[in-house]
């Protein structure tokens, strides 16, 4: 068996394991799993951090020629991307690239949210770029059998009541 095939099998096993875990998960966990949740959350946080400085310079932001308006624009766009990433997971790569780009540019006009916003934005954007979803199909009989085995295992390990 070649290395590539071994890697593919390992990946399939990993996906199946996650599928089994998710089979009995709550609705929120299922919702979270079908979209780039952590990437979107970090992007949202980065947007808020980047908006912090220009919002404090609100009085100056709208004076002609002020760069503070750029900070509001960059921070606002990152915030918007963070929200959109929850609802349009299929566009996560595009959202990720734009988030990284805007986070780096936010040094102008917002000091990148004291640079922390920029760093969080780069990490969040990278998570969005790296995210992908796969549909895993497993026979329900297999799941039932595994559940049965698990229940039997649990019962045998439970101490008998006196």
């Amino acid at each position, binding site marked *: 068996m070649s290395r590539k095939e071994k890697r593919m099998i390992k990946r399939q096993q990993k996906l199946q394991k996650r599928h089994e875990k998710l089979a009995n998960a709550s609705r929120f966990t299922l919702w979270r799993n079908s979209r780039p949740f952590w990437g979107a959350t970090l992007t949202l946080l980065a947007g808020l951090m980047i908006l912090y400085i220009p919002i404090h310079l609100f009085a100056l932001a709208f004076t002609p020629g002020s760069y503070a308006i750029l900070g509001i624009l960059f921070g606002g766009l990152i915030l918007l991307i963070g929200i959109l990433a929850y609802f349009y997971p299929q566009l996560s790569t595009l959202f990720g690239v734009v988030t990284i780009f805007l986070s780096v540019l936010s040094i102008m006009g917002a000091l990148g949210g004291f640079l922390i916003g920029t760093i969080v934005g780069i990490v969040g954007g*990278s998570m969005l770029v790296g995210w992908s979803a796969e549909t895993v199909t497993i026979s329900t009989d297999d*799941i039932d059998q595994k559940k049965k085995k698990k229940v039997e295992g649990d019962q045998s390990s439970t101490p008998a009541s006196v």
Partner: protein
Amino acid sequence: MGENALTVGQVAKKKFLIALLAGFLAFGGIAAFFGLTTTAFALPLGGMGDFYVELEELKGEGFRLQPQVAETGSTDAAPMVRNMIDKVEIKGLTIYKDLKLPTGNWIRVNIKAPSASIQGLTQDAQFIDANLSLTDMSIEEKNTDDFTQNWTQNAGTITITDAKIVTDYLFQNFVSLNGAKISIESIDGPEVIE
């Protein structure tokens, strides 16, 4: 026999690391550019109480002065003046701030630049000790409840020499400090101007 289909999302390590590396490279590049040219966009300095600005000569275009009430290191609302200058060229600039360490000792953080150019300067000052020279000066009064517009002083150009300004807020749209040096020295106590 039934089938159960579920969407399983995951972050691919390789893609994530490539994107992260690219992001930090771009970040490093832009930080190095601004660091090497000592240039900053939309640089605010404020919220840390009084700090001092000293300069040998300042030449500015498009000067406006208006009353301002703002928070300082010691009070919530102190009277001051807001200077706004569109374009500024400075020679012999020193900005310093006295800070108390947790040990009780005082230090002074100095930022010195032989020359600096600024666009879009806004400065709230409590005290100005300087030689001023203004051209095309006009003083305007407006019958308005907005105290910042009630009285304004405008000038086409302004030249300030040997200035010492107690500043509480400084904002620059674009600033370039040529040959800037940052140093820290120990001092006996903070400078106080009565």
